[in-house]
C-alpha cells in the first residue's frame, strides 16, 4: 500500500512542479494580450475541465502509442512508447490539470494590472527582471492556489490514469485505481483505509485554499 501512496504523491508532486512552470508563460500571455482570438487558446487550455476523462484518456493513449506521429518524433531518441509508463502518466496528468494551473495564475496576473510592470520599467528593470522581481511575487497567491488545486486534482484523477497508466503496481498504479480494484475484489477494509485518507487529504487541501482566500481578503482591506 505504501508503494501506491508513494507513486501517487510522486505523480502529483512532479505534475504540480512541471505544470506551474509550463502554465506561467501561457497565463502571462493570456493576461497580457488583448486580441479576441487569445480566448481560443484560453478555451483549449480549459477544455480538460469539461471533457470526460475517458475521452481525454483515449486521445492521450493514441498520442502516446508507438505508432503515433508524436512518438515517431521520439523514436530516434530510443523512446518507442510512453503509454503505460510513469512518464506518460505525468504527461496525461499535466494535460488533465492544465486548467487548474492556468486559470488562477492568469487571474492573479490580470488583477495586478499593467501598472506595477510599468513602474518597474521606469525603475530600470528589464522585462525579465521585472517579471521575476515584480509580477511573480505579486501573483504569488495565484501560484499557491494553482499548486494546491493541481496537486489535489491529480491525486483525485481516475479515468485518465486508468486508461493511459493501466494500473501497473509499483509503476503506474495510484490510490484511486487501487481503491477501484480493492472494491472490485470486495476487499472493503483496505478500500476504506485508502478512501478515508483521500477524503481527509482533500478536505485539508480545500480548507487551506479557503483560509488563503480569507487572508487575501483581509489584506486587501
Amino acid at each position: 500500500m505504501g508503494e501506491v501512496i508513494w507513486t501517487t504523491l510522486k505523480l502529483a508532486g512532479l505534475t504540480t512542479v512541471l505544470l506551474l512552470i509550463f502554465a506561467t508563460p501561457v497565463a502571462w500571455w493570456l493576461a497580457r494580450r488583448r486580441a479576441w482570438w487569445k480566448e481560443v487558446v484560453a478555451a483549449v487550455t480549459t477544455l480538460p475541465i469539461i471533457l470526460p476523462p475517458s475521452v481525454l484518456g483515449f486521445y492521450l493513449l493514441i498520442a502516446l502509442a508507438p505508432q503515433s506521429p508524436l512518438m515517431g518524433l521520439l523514436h530516434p531518441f530510443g523512446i518507442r512508447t510512453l503509454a503505460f509508463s510513469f512518464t506518460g502518466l505525468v504527461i496525461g496528468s499535466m494535460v488533465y490539470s492544465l486548467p487548474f494551473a492556468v486559470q488562477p495564475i492568469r487571474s492573479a496576473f490580470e488583477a495586478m494590472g499593467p501598472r506595477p510592470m510599468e513602474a518597474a520599467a521606469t525603475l530600470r528593470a528589464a522585462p525579465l527582471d521585472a517579471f521575476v522581481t515584480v509580477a511573480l511575487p505579486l501573483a504569488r497567491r495565484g501560484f499557491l492556489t494553482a499548486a494546491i488545486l493541481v496537486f489535489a486534482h491529480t491525486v483525485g484523477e481516475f479515468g485518465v490514469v486508468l486508461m493511459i497508466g493501466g494500473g501497473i503496481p509499483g509503476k503506474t498504479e495510484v490510490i484511486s485505481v487501487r481503491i477501484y480494484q480493492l472494491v472490485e475484489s470486495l476487499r472493503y477494509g483496505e478500500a476504506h483505509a485508502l478512501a478515508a485518507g483521500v477524503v481527509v487529504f482533500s478536505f485539508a487541501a480545500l480548507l487551506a485554499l479557503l483560509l488563503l482566500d480569507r487572508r487575501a481578503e483581509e489584506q486587501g482591506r
Partner: protein
Amino acid sequence: MTEVIEGRFTGKVGVFALDAAFSFPAQGITALSGPSGAGKTTLLRCIAGLTRLEGRLSVGGEAWQDGRTFLPTHRRPIGVVFQEASLLAHLSVRGNLAYGARRSPAKAEVGFDDTVELLGLAPLLGRSTANLSGGERQRVALGRALLSQPRLLLMDEPLSSLDAASKAEILPYLERLHRTLAIPALYISHDAGEIARLADRVLFMTAGRILSATPASPSDKALAGLSAQQRDALAMAALKAGLTPQD
C-alpha cells in the same frame, strides 16, 4: 549652454489624436498644463517610452527615439511619479526605494541618506506600503524615482489625488527638491497655485497640441489651425494656470 529636451510625437491613442512638438531646457521644473483630455499624460508616457507613437525625442542631444531608435523604458534614465503612487505592494518602503537604486549606474549622484532626509522618509522605512497615507505614498514614490538617478524626472499630477492637507504637506518637499537638486523635471498640473510655486516655465497643451507658453502669450501662428473650441480651451487653461491676458 543649457541642454534641451525636444521632440515631436504624432499618432492616435484610441480616438484621441496627438500631434505634439515641444522643446524645453533641461533645467528646473517645466510645468505641462492644459485642460483634461488635452493629452498631457499621453505625452508624458511617450517621453517615458511607456506609450509608443510615431515621432522623435532627444534629451540633451541624445536620441531616445527617432526613425530607427526606440529606447525601451528601462534603458531611459528617467524617474516617473504617477498620479497614483504605484508603489510595489510586495516590498517595504525601503524595498521600494532600493528597487531603482540597485539597478541604476554605480555612480550615484542622489544619495540614499540624502533622499531620506530630503523627503522626511526616515520614520517610514521599515513599514509596508499598505497603510501609508496618500501624502506618504507620494513621498516614497518621489524618493524611489530620485534614487534611480534620473536625468529627467517626469511627474504626472502627483498631488491631484491628495486632499488639501496632504498637498500642503508635500509641496514644501517639492520646493526643497527644486532648490537642492539639479535634475530637470516635467511636471503635469492644472493647478495654478502649484505651478506658481514650483514651475520655472509652462508648456500649454490642448487637443493634443503643444503651445509653448514661453513667451507667455501664444503667437497667432501657434493658434492657426485650431478650432474656436480649441482656442477657448487653451484660453481657459492659460487663465487657470495663472497667466493674465497681455493684449
